[in-house]
């Protein structure tokens, strides 16, 4: 019993406050060589994606956030924040990670990274 509860609570890592991430913007979380971009939409939903466009690895955290998508700063690919997949005629996918809000705190689950 105990062991299970430890695992379920510990998979969520506290990365900061919700107010750290600007609306229609993003912040980065670094882990080793990997950068994860944490996005906040206009209506205060949070999403986490690897900070790499499936096209040419552009840093998505630097893009413009609109509705549920981000436009990559390098060549304007539009990536869905929810699914990580490229929209429109382009094809490709960026890895997504679960995020949740507890009170003012923002937690991320990076188990998929390993």
């Amino acid at each position, binding site marked *: 019993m105990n062991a299970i509860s430890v695992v379920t609570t510990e998979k969520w890592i506290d990365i900061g406050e919700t107010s750290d991430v600007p*609306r229609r913007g993003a912040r980065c979380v670094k882990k080793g060589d990997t950068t994860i971009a944490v996005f906040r939409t206009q209506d205060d939903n949070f999403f986490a994606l690897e900070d790499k466009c499936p096209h040419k690895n552009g840093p998505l955290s*630097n893009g413009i956030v609109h509705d549920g998508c981000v436009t990559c700063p390098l060549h304007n690919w539009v990536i869905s924040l929810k699914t990580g997949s490229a929209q429109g005629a382009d094809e490709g996918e960026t890895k997504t990670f679960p995020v949740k809000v507890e009170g003012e705190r923002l937690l991320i689950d990076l188990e998929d990274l390993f």
Partner: protein
Amino acid sequence: MSKQKLVIIGNGMAPGRMLEHLFEQSPDAFDVTIFNAEPRVNYDRIMLSPVLSGEKSFEEIIIHGDGWYIKHGIMLYKGHKIVDISREAKTVTSDQGVTESYDKLVIATGSNPFIIPMPGHDMAGVLSYRDLDDVTAMMLAAQSRQKAVVIGGGLLGLEAAAGLQARGMEVTVVHLMPTLMERQLDPSAGYLLQEELESRGINVKTGANSKRIVGDKKVEGLELENGEIIDCSLIVMAVGIRPNIGLAQEADLKVERGIIVDQAMRTIDPDILSLGECTQIDGQVYGLVAPLYEMARVAAHTLGGDDSHSFVHQDTATKLKVTGVDLFSVGDFAEGDDRDEIVLRDANAGIYKRIILKDDKIIGTVLYGETSDGAWLNDLKKKGTDVSEMRDTLIFGQAYQGGAAMDPMAAVAALPDDAEICGCNGICKSKIVGTINDMGLTSLDEVRAHTKASASCGTCTGLVEQLMTLTLGDSFDPNAVQSMCPCTDLGHGDVRRLIKAKELKTIPAVMQELEWKTSCGCAKCRPALNYYLVADWPDVYADDYQSRYINERVHANIQKDGTYSVVPRMWGGMTSSKELRAIADVVDKFEIPSVKVTGGQRIDMLGIKKEDLPAVWADLGQAGFVSGQAYAKGLRTVKTCVGTNWCRFGTQDSTGLGIKLEKFMWGSWTPAKLKLAVSGCPRNCAEATCKDIGIICVDSGFEIHFAGAAGLDIKGTEVLGSVPTENEALEHVVALAQMYREQGFYLERIYKWAARIGLDEIRKQIMEDHDRRKDYFDRFVFSQKFAQVDPWSERVSGKDKHEFNPMATLDLEAAE
């Protein structure tokens, strides 16, 4: 399965079309590398004539922009000519020493213009008419407003002649044969065409054989066989093309007139294909676009592993792209005993129509002066329809078949499903209608993108628009404005007008009042709205940081690896040992990998990590530098020469004026980037005549220029006017910039804005209407109060700190 390597030699329309087919059929089959001897992307060669005549710009005829190559992961070597193919090693090598290996090779080297080897053919002033470089050279030569001779009265030669005349030259066409365009027109139509051209002031000499070019190093005239000498400073030879087969020959491929291929476009080496004008198939070589596109279709299938498609020859209809001359011809129009013909002539109206019949079927058509039935007659010819029933009225056209005359819409409606609408691309009516319905297309651009109809020479645009009206009903208006983006139906002009009229002062207010269709816009409209609001309400609008493109958010230029480049201002291009030392120290301290001198007379430090930017700026700021705004849709550089300070030819202090302008205008946002230059004399060392705004100093004062371009388009500036003093020069330049700031569409460079508004209108408002100019000037000065804040020092002091630092750095064991 790993991708195969496809190398293409040549980057013309045929291989471009082949790749479109290939990416559609098997998108992941190949890694593609292209070598292009021309230093540019794929453009529509058929449309060079409208570029020459000034009806279109180069930008408008680009088929595949740089983005297309990036999107498809294509390595494009611009300006690389392949000099060797090694079939054993399966490699190609360029004249610049690049060697690439291939699994499949496509040779698409096109053709070379034929230069008549008469005495003097290698003199300066002798040009061919083949690519953009030729057009640029002709446009330059035309600036002299002198005399030109075009040798060759075929399609290309006549288009060149009309273009040069439109540019202000006095033109003579010298043609060997007795009538013009004898391969496409019968003698009667050729005669009418000659009359038309002569009435427009183009001299035509038919049956004239050129003997030699007169001149000493430079062209001075052309001597004909009969001894006549025509004075001219420019000779354009448009007498035919020769397939470019040298490379294939050296690689021991089989060649005759062209590179010989089988029905699936393969040469004798199954891993090497050939297509385009360099190719010979069934004993024929081709120069018109429709058969080349047919080759492209077949080649794409062959590369995709399906060699069951084979090339089918079809007659191509010819049209002359000279505004106001309507002619159409297709098929065989020679006279013969087994042939019958129907002719209609109307001398007063300048109309000539001839239909050639054999066994009651149409085999050829020549129309002059009135060509609207061309598509219909071509369709009857293609299908081999027996026309004996309608013979009596055939020559009057489709409208007279079965009673009352039809209006154009009804005529289009009556066309059969398989009637060809776009001859260049072989697109029939049902394909266009079907695609509009299936994909829900609503604009001409969309129809062009998805069907290719009207995407080459554009002469069928009217027909395509009629088809769209027929399919979409009244909801399609061919004259409608392009919407800003999919979030709204309004165009940029409407949005700018409504922002002022309704006094909208925030992005949410604009979106609400103008009924945006998305909740918070997109990456296209938000930066545009942000600019319009900054420009219109400088004192009250709070700049929306998240609606700015990343470069304007972090005040540096993003590079392909996600690092940034930093360019400090060097006022008027002047610097000092102290500044250079400070830059050297920053480069060492932050281990900046590249330092480059820019075209705008300053220094670019490339490869800086985003996290390091504030510290780099802090050090640069200590040395007195501010942001060069090399990333901004705003004032960039003011390039200068040394003027009266040093130069023995200088007439004014051009450096001083450049620095004054830059200090006055820095920080201002504009619709698109704004680059200035000041030259101290008409020798123009600061290259002011290709800038957005340029000043040429003269003894009597300052000549103000604007609307130049030296990017995708090359365009000399227009003269705004002359003023006697430095202060007036500054006032006029600033007023012009403000007028552009208030009226330009986002990302619209000043030369495009000027073309839209009209040069005379701009001159009137800035040079003649003194009150208006003063108002523009005052509004600019007012907005500068809020704009002239150095973004670097703001960020060194902690502004937008979140942008540069990660919110968390996790150690690697955190999750265990």
